């Protein structure tokens, strides 16, 4: 079936579409189960994959006929080669991985990384523990970058128009360009980049602007709201950025801010947040989270008090909250307009904030207008949180005098004909900007257009020159994290197809075509060092080597002050302005609002050709391969819509066709649309629907007054999870803080029936016994574990059609369940890997013994013995086994082979596979310990999912050692195993989820004292 990434969403049958409706129906228990399944069987017969007889098919026919004769197993090995080096690189030991510290940027987010390489092939990215924005964890995007590096669809050749060209030719072109610019001071030359977090890049751009004073620089980040950055900044000039100290906050109010998942530093936020969500006898306290947002986000799903609020009502809610806190304000009291629910939520939140002055925090949403940020800053100042839970870091401007211009201003200039040369560095406005068509038309007016990027995009198609840009794992650089910490980006491999790093491309324009990125970065830091203090070369080399090794620049060596100069400054109270702003109009709920957000897995569309991210179920909805318009059950009911129904969403004459998806806990009359889908020029072809046509300047993030028309046909969506109702089964234990702390609950949890097995008890072995504990109280449901596992274990991508058929291959899946009232449900996440049962039902039923138990308690799956009866999967109560129904693993695409982990078999068609607790890591550690005669220390072996988890919710280790972290986790009263009545005795156990809604009466009393 070729490369499964290339599966289009269009050519698919109408199966599985209305599943989700069942769930809601079961909440309400109105329709009978029978009706709910009406549309399931409109199609009895359909061919899962149209017969394409290509070369592979023919070959496989031959293979099959050989197979019939039972020959396949009897043929002995093919002849293979050994190709030793001519000159062995130093330190390189074949068969042993090497790690390099580096860092990546996505939008405004910067994460420090460690890149694992095998014989010079980068195969996996891990977080850099000493980097403040990572702390050892990574998000889903960092995990997926490794696939982007090896993506066969990356731009590979220099193009001039349609024709292929060369770097030399470009250098000449750049020469001409420079001559002209020297004549006219660079008038009409414009540089358009994404967010720049790289000091050397800033310096280089600064150099450019110095040399050509008339040239201008613009930045454009598709998934960033421009004004808030400046909003409510303590001082004018370059605005500092707020850094939140989540761990210090006892009460957190998020005004539509997805600070656990969707913000710079969210990994750190998540770590700190979770550190306050694990109540125990020693530490009985817990923070409390209030979230008001239009649709459930990762952060919202962890809230103790969540308010489903229209995006455009957030400013009003902020205003009311401010009022409730008792800040002076003018104008009418805002609270009158709010609904009862909202007022209740605000009152609770205000009370909590009051109670925890100095230990509370109000976080404004990135996509909220400046007003909300101002209000939030004022509230934090008023509550005395400045310096304790929120501090201000300097935004690095690289000593540039002026702020970069916006895309909008660039477009206006282009339309005015003031631009004759446009150099675009890896940003794609012709697709992702509001009024993208207008951008494209404006670009036509520019005489010379150059584009450098990882991919050929909608924008690159409009350019005269296309310059293939090197991936960050192929180039030198440096990056500045959310708190100001800098890291050096070092390459792990030469550009696969001779692409060039952005720095070198700029250098070429600047007239130094032979300057390498390494030199540029090194020189920049040498200058930095020199500027701070006289330093000898030796001292600098030491500093440089250390910085490379640590992945974090320890300024101590050369610089007196930490660059993360996080100082506290009270924001200037520009009262009256805000005073007036306090009472923004309460929006009339009757009008339908559209809310635009970056896609949870594709971001702004830059990852559209990344199969891992396309297939990663999106948090909450579990949708893969495409997007939908998210709406509430109420709105759907009123419009007569079911999940999967195609609708036409119209706004001011523009319209799109898109399926809807009903989300419990979604705000009424609000439609959330995700950017980044429906890319034309992306590896897999068009997947999902591009919602950009509905966006205009000034209404980029939310707009009121849309119309929705039902089109009457269904669009099959590829959801991973079809049933999000727990059916009153004891799958996720959720307690309130009081319950968690009270003895009887602990006792009842500990109480277990006596379980007997017909099979003889396994003898207790000496040596380690592996086990895992997953803390549901810490899990925020971000899905990083799923994709990290995919990267570590060579898990195949199967494509939309196969996902729709229920054949997704992820070894660790994330189940999300809703509980209670669909308009304000409790939302719970549960990562489900293999339970490694001690009485494993799968083991007894395999006729060829392809799955057997190891001495160390692992439930072993032997791919090369498996004949594929699939009985084990049927008999697995947790359904964690995955089957290769087709030849999913791509044996053909060379560059994809580069990514694979050499320590894990690549599974062939017809075999079962499942989570192994990353046995390759276990075995490697065991061998290392034996060869070096050192015992394996606790925590020395980490599974991929554990390593990536931002909240450290997953703990793995030796349960035979009572002192180990995992044993201690399992000894707590929150510990329980899944379906233990089946006596499977899982080695993977869970810690009950604890929520902290608090005791209302007590609070109200206090709040009455507090406010007034």
């Amino acid at each position, binding site marked *: 079936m070729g490369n499964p990434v290339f599966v289009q969403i269009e050519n698919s049958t109408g199966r599985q579409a209305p599943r989700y409706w069942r769930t809601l129906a079961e909440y309400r228990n109105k329709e009978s189960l029978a009706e709910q399944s009406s549309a399931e069987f409109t199609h009895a017969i359909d061919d899962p994959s149209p017969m394409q007889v290509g070369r592979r098919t023919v070959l496989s026919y031959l293979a099959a006929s050989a197979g019939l004769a039972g020959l396949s197993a009897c043929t002995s090995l093919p002849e293979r080669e050994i190709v030793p080096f001519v000159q062995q690189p130093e330190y390189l030991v074949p068969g042993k991985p090497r790690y390099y510290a580096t860092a990546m940027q996505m939008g405004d987010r910067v994460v420090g990384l460690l890149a694992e390489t095998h014989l010079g092939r980068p195969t996996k990215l891990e977080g850099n523990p000493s980097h403040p924005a990572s702390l050892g964890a990574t998000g889903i995007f960092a995990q997926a970058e490794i696939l982007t590096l090896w993506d066969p669809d990356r731009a590979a050749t220099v193009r001039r128009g349609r024709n292929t060209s060369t770097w030399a030719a470009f250098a000449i072109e750049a020469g001409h360009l420079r001559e002209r610019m020297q004549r006219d001071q660079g008038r009409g030359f414009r540089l358009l980049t994404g967010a720049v977090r790289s000091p050397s890049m800033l310096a280089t751009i600064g150099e450019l602007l110095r040399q050509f004073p008339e040239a201008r620089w613009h930045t454009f980040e598709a998934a960033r709201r421009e004004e808030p950055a400046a909003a409510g900044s303590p001082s004018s000039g370059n605005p500092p950025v707020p850094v939140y100290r989540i761990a210090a906050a006892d009460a957190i109010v998020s005004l539509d801010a997805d600070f656990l998942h969707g913000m710079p530093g969210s990994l750190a936020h998540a770590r700190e947040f979770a550190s306050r969500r694990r109540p125990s006898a020693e530490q009985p306290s817990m923070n409390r989270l209030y979230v008001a947002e239009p649709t459930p986000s990762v952060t919202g799903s962890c809230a103790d008090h969540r308010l489903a609020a229209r995006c455009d009502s957030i400013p009003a809610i902020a205003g009311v909250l401010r009022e409730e806190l008792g800040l002076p304000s003018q104008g009418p009291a805002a609270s009158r307009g709010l609904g009862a629910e909202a007022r209740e939520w605000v009152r609770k939140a205000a009370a909590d904030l009051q109670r925890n002055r100095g230990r509370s925090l109000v976080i404004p949403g990135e996509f909220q207008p400046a007003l909300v940020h101002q209000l939030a800053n004022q509230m934090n100042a008023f509550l005395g949180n400045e310096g304790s839970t929120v501090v201000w870091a300097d935004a690095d401007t690289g000593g540039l005098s002026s702020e970069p211009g916006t895309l909008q201003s660039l477009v206006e200039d282009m339309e005015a004909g003031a631009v004759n040369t446009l150099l675009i560095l890896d940003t794609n406005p012709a697709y992702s900007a509001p009024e993208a068509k207008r951008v494209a038309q404006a670009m036509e007016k520019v005489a010379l257009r150059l584009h450098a990027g990882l991919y050929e995009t909608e924008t690159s198609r409009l350019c005269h020159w296309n310059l293939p840009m090197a991936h960050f794992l192929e180039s030198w650089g440096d990056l500045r994290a959310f708190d100001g910490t800098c890291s050096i980006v070092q390459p792990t491999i030469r550009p696969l197809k001779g692409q060039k790093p952005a720095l070198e491309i700029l250098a070429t324009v600047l007239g130094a075509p032979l300057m390498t990125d390494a030199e540029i970065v090194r020189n920049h830091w040498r200058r930095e060092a020199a500027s701070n203090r006289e330093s000898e070369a030796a001292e600098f080399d030491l500093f440089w080597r250390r910085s490379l090794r640590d992945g974090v620049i320890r300024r101590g060596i050369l610089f007196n002050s930490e660059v993360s100069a996080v100082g506290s400054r009270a924001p200037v109270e520009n009262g009256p302005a805000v005073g007036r702003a306090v009472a923004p109009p309460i929006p009339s709920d009757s009008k339908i609002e559209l809310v635009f957000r970056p896609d949870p897995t594709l971001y702004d569309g830059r990852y559209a050709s990344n199969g891992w991210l396309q297939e990663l179920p999106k948090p909450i909805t579990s949708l893969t391969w495409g997007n939908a318009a998210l709406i509430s059950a109420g709105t759907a009911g009123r419009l007569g819509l079911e999940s999967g129904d195609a609708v036409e969403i119209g706004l001011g004459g523009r319209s799109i066709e898109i399926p809807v998806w009903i989300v419990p806990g979604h705000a009424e009359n609000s439609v959330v649309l995700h950017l980044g889908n429906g890319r034309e020029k992306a590896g897999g072809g068009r997947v999902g629907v591009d919602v950009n046509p509905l966006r205009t300047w000034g209404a980029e993030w939310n707009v009121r007054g849309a119309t929705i028309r039902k089109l009457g046909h269904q669009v099959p969506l590829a959801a991973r999870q079809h049933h999000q109702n727990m059916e009153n089964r004891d799958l996720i234990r959720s307690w309130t803080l009081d319950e968690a702390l009270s003895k009887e609950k602990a006792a009842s949890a500990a109480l277990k029936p006596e379980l007997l097995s017909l099979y003889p008890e396994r003898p207790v072995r000496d040596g380690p016994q592996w086990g895992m504990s997953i803390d549901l109280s810490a899990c925020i449901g971000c899905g990083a574990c799923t994709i990290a596992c995919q990267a570590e274990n060579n898990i195949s991508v199967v494509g939309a059609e196969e996902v729709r058929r229920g054949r997704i291959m992820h070894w660790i899946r994330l189940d999300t369940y809703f509980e209670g009232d669909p308009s304000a449900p409790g939302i719970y996440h549960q990562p489900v890997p293999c339970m490694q049962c001690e009485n494993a039902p799968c083991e007894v039923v395999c006729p060829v013994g392809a799955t057997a138990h190891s001495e160390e308690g692992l439930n072993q799956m032997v791919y090369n013995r498996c004949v594929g009866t699939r009985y084990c999967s049927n008999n697995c109560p947790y359904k964690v*086994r995955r089957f290769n129904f087709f030849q999913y693993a791509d044996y053909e695409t060379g560059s994809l082979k580069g990514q694979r982990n050499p320590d894990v078999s690549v599974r062939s068609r017809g075999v079962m596979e499942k989570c192994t607790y990353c046995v390759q890591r276990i075995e490697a550690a065991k061998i290392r310990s034996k060869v070096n005669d050192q015992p394996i220390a606790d925590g020395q072996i980490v599974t991929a999912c554990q390593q990536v988890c931002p909240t450290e919710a997953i703990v793995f280790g030796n349960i035979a050692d009572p002192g180990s972290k995992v044993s201690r986790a399992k000894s707590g009263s929150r510990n329980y195993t899944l379906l233990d009545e089946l006596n499977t005795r899982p080695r993977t156990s869970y810690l009950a989820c604890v929520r902290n809604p608090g005791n209302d009466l007590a609070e109200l009393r206090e709040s009455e004292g507090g406010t007034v």
Partner: protein
Amino acid sequence: MPALRQLDPLERPPVIGEDVRYEDVNRRIAGIVTAPTSKGWLIGFGVAFLFVMLFMAAVTYLFARGIGIWGVNVPVAWGFAIVNFVWWIGIGHAGTLISAILLLLHQEWRTSINRFTEAMTLFAVACAGVFPILHLGRPWFFYWLFPYPSEMQIWPQFRSPLMWDVFAVSTYGTVSLLFWYVGLIPDFATMRDLAQTRGKRLLWGVFALGWRGSAHHWKQYQMAYLLLAGLATPLVVSVHSIVSLDFSVGIVPGWHSTIFPPYFVAGAIFSGFAMVVTLILPIRHFYHLEDFITIRHLDNMAKILLVTGLIVGYGYLMETFIAWYSGNIFERFMVLNRIFGPYWWVWAIVIFCNVMTPQIFWSKRMRVNLPVLFAASLAINVGMWVERYMIVVVSLHRDFMPGAWGMYSGTFWDWSTLLGTFGLFLALLFLFIRGIPMLSMAELRELVPSPRKERK
């Protein structure tokens, strides 16, 4: 004479037509084989053969692309293949029951249908036998299921019911074949003697193994036949019990049940007899065998359908009751989901076809009403297939963790494999009818009413 007979209540009506003479038996039964090929047969065989071709196509594509061309997924990792397997094995049972058990019970009415049903058994087992291999993810390693001294020094896992299947089914196939063949020997001899050309005589002769019909031969023959019957009898029970263990050893709600073995065996005989009726009515009609396969046969078979149908119904009832009685939430949900869940229609069909339909056989009029009998037998065949669909698919699609629940539906290739095996089965049957005396002449001759009666 009829008056006379009525006076004697103890005498039951003869098994075969009253005016049948010895020579008629040979003439009319052997005649079917020796007569020139009829157009009807050609058409029938042609159609069946087309389906065989469809089967081959489906299998080739399956081996080329992989199991994914079927509708199976996770959670429903077993689909049509297993359903078909269980169904076909079940069909076979009637044959063994009739030939073995009824023989031991001296039910002489069996004689006119045993040959035919044994053949049916054989072909059904052949159809069933392919599925365990087809449904493998890597069918070319099917031989790993057999215990043989491999260089890897590892053996199959004898705790797995799939392992037991291998033995159960292969034994069943072998014994059925032997039984069938031994029964055929005297008839092969008859054919040899009737044959006109030397070539045919040689051909039949080889199969007849030099049968001369001597008393010594008859003695040996009777003994062998009896022994085989004894050997086959436990198989009637064992085979489908083992097959049922494929499910009841699993922990899936709807599978994990101790009632399975008896209720599977009953179901097997139920479906088997239904199939016998379905096939025998047309043949009886087209080949004018009313004298040999009399109303009494059909009446008896209808009674057996009624009895086994009741047992199956009891099985359903018990499953439901125990689910409630056990208080196990998963069992309870499984039953509710069967009846009210997305696959409610499966349950409805099962109840209608397997429980309600046979109830009409309480009335003699219905039992001997051929159209009704035929329709009912068809319904039961369908019902029993759907029952297996219910057990395999409906139990799997919603088991323990709602987060992993899914749906299943057969694809084009699933259906073509099923229809393909119909083709295979019918094609073999046609060849059998044409090539081999389909009723046991030797045994029927014993049943011919003795002329002495006439003289009275």
